[in-house]
């Protein structure tokens, strides 16, 4: 059982090995809580590796699994790990003795592990649940080989958030084109507001801005190809994205390099900032019910009429099956259940910050904000997942995050920055 011989004897496996030795030596079942292989061989249990370490999602998932047990008699044994740790250890986790089913993200980040044969295709599950999902979701759930590997559960949109009361008081209208957006920024600045709230301390929010401008300007197909490494970053089309961004940059909140998104969101809460481009999780920062009801959003304005507003950035979370599940029948049952509208509705009852991935799930219990998000995602022609989910994580974390920060510091140095990104991209995408 000790994995000392396995690749790189990751910290986790070494610890587990040492822990195992301790168990043998002392006869105390020290690790019974985190052992992932014990007790899963019987047909009444499915093990599940979860990244839902936050209180609300954890509780929401627990209610879903409890309901699944009631209907099917199969127990879901959840092994929860801290959200970021789970993500960082995913490589060694999937190579070791993973749980039967695990939480993961749709898109490129799912396809990567599917292509590495670390996941099991689940076409049999999709034969039953296929009707529950719109085409855009189906596209997100398939690997590069065309097989299904993923069952989506929830999703949320990125958009520009604002306060209805601020817009009414100042007589602003929602901008639908780039020129209107720039004009609105100018007006807000004149009115003493910070036009666009922004905080990039965590390095990922800037990627959201890039995504929006890129697929509005160059379209979904180009964006996807650029993320997948096939289009060149030195393409004039990419340069144009940064030119547009530079035009908007003077209207962004100052001091953004040292500000977290939570602090930037406070500007919207206190009505000092006019707009904020972020995911709908920004609503978590609105603790006052009246403020939350005042929050609204609109899709990023059209830049190129050929593409309009047809793409929505909607990161989708769901489930995958590991390479060798111990209880295959139980896994199929669980995945079919998780792909049902009932499971999604149950989840959303506890966690209303996201919306259902299925188009069949009832929207009756949605807040106006959720309803709008759901409609926006449902009407989208294409869905993107966010730069670090649509591209190789090694590329986005070691090249794009520092690269975009460099641009924000020095917008004039775009040309040398883009050729540097392109050089680094080539070596990373060539590496496997």
């Amino acid at each position, binding site marked *: 059982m000790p994995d000392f011989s396995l*690749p*790189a004897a990751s910290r986790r496996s070494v610890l587990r090995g040492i822990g195992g030795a301790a168990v043998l030596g002392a006869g105390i079942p020290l690790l019974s809580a985190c052992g992932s292989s014990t007790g899963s061989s019987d047909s009444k249990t499915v093990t599940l590796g979860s990244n839902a370490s936050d209180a609300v999602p954890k509780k929401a998932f627990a209610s879903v699994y409890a309901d699944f047990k009631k209907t099917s008699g199969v127990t879901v044994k959840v092994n929860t790990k801290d959200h970021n740790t789970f*993500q*960082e250890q*995913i*490589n*060694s986790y999937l*190579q070791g003795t993973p749980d039967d089913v695990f939480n993961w993200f749709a898109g490129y*980040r799912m396809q990567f592990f599917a292509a*590495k044969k*670390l996941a099991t295709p689940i076409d049999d599950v999709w034969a039953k649940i296929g009707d529950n999902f719109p085409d855009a979701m189906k596209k997100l759930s398939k690997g590069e080989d065309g097989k299904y590997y993923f069952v989506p559960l929830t999703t949320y949109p990125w958009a520009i958030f604002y306060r209805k009361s601020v817009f009414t008081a100042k007589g602003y209208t929602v901008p639908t084109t780039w020129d209107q957006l720039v004009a609105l920024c100018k007006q807000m600045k004149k009115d003493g507001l*910070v036009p666009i709230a922004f905080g*990039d*301390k*965590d*390095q990922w929010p800037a990627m959201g801005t890039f995504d929006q401008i890129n697929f509005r300007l160059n379209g979904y197909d180009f964006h996807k190809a650029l993320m997948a490494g096939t289009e060149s970053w030195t393409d004039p089309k990419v340069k144009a994205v940064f030119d547009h961004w530079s035009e908007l940059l003077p209207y962004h909140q*100052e*001091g*953004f*390099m*040292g*500000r977290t998104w939570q*602090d930037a969101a*406070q500007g919207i809460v206190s009505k000092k900032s006019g707009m904020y481009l972020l995911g709908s999780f920004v609503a978590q920062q609105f603790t006052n019910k009246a403020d939350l009801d005042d929050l609204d959003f609109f899709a990023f304005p059209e830049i190129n009429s050929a593409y309009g507003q047809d793409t929505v950035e909607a990161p989708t979370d769901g489930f995958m099956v590991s390479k060798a599940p111990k209880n295959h029948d139980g896994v199929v049952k669980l995945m079919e259940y998780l792909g049902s509208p009932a499971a999604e509705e149950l989840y959303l009852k506890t966690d209303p910050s996201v919306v259902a991935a299925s188009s069949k799930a009832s929207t009756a219990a949605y807040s106006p904000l959720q309803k709008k998000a759901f409609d926006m995602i449902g009407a989208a022609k294409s869905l993107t997942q966010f730069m670090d989910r649509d591209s190789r*994580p*090694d590329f986005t*974390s*070691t090249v794009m995050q*520092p*690269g975009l*920060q*460099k641009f924000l*510091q020095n917008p004039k140095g775009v040309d040398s920055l883009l050729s*540097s990104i392109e*050089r*680094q991209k080539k*070596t*990373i995408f060539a*590496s*496997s």
Partner: protein
Amino acid sequence: MISETTTTSPEAEAVPPPGPAPAKKRVPKGAKRLLTRRDRITLAFMAGVPTVLHVALVWVTALASIALAFTSWDGIGFDSIKWVGLDNFKQLFSDNPQFWPALEHNVIWFVVLIVLPTPFGLFLAVQLDKNIRFSRVYQTAFFLPVVMSLAVTGFVWQLIYNPDTGLINSLIGANKPGHYIDWIGDPKLNLWAVLIAASWRHAGYMMILYLAGLKGVDPSLREASALDGANEWQTFKNVIFPTLRPTNTVVLVVTIIESLRAFDLVFVFNKGAQGTELLSILITNNIIGESSRIGYGSAIAVVLLVISLAVIIPYLIATFRKERRA
């Protein structure tokens, strides 16, 4: 003269005197009789287990990461390891926009630590060595930052530097549009901001080292210099400081190590964003986490290893030479 004796003495030893040879043979026999079978097994375990652990955890891993530096590997299965020769290093030196700044920041880190907090720590130690009142309280206060985890230190300083709600900007009114001072994000400022935090901690560390050194100074030396009519500064400069030589060596080594392994403070502070890149953070970003560019990250680790060796080997040579002379 000295060099002559040192060069001749090994030669003299190399020629075995004919007389004691049989006596030498007898000694091990006696030693064998002293050790029972159980003793020998115990000894083998006591020497063997640490050796195995040391070889496995230090040498094998170090050599493995050197080997990996010449490969490309995503960490998934051994068969995906590809030999790429010097490619990783070529990319690192020519294409990585973060590498040279990181190296520079590590050097700045060392220079600042040795120039500012180290003399200050010495100053504090000299003051506290005078048995002033509440000496213990001061010692504790200055040493407290060292006891705290660097992650905690980073977190606290990050709150102080926060551009919107931080202590500094609130006090000087720099959190309004047009007056922003972005301590954490501005690449011209953030390294210095984080170095203040590092110095704050390092001064306490140096103080304790020097305080221990000062306690070891023979009081009769002070008395003698006082009798000779030396004032306080002269005593320190000509008598005390030269006797602190061994402490100074330790201080130098500790400071070099601190500056090479600087990581936690910056990682908590701003994750090594532009302006605060460090070699250790580049390694982490490339190897740990989903990115898993293990070969490339190992190449950076090898660079760090080479730098460490370049510093440590001359130090070891000097130490051994001194020992041989003694």
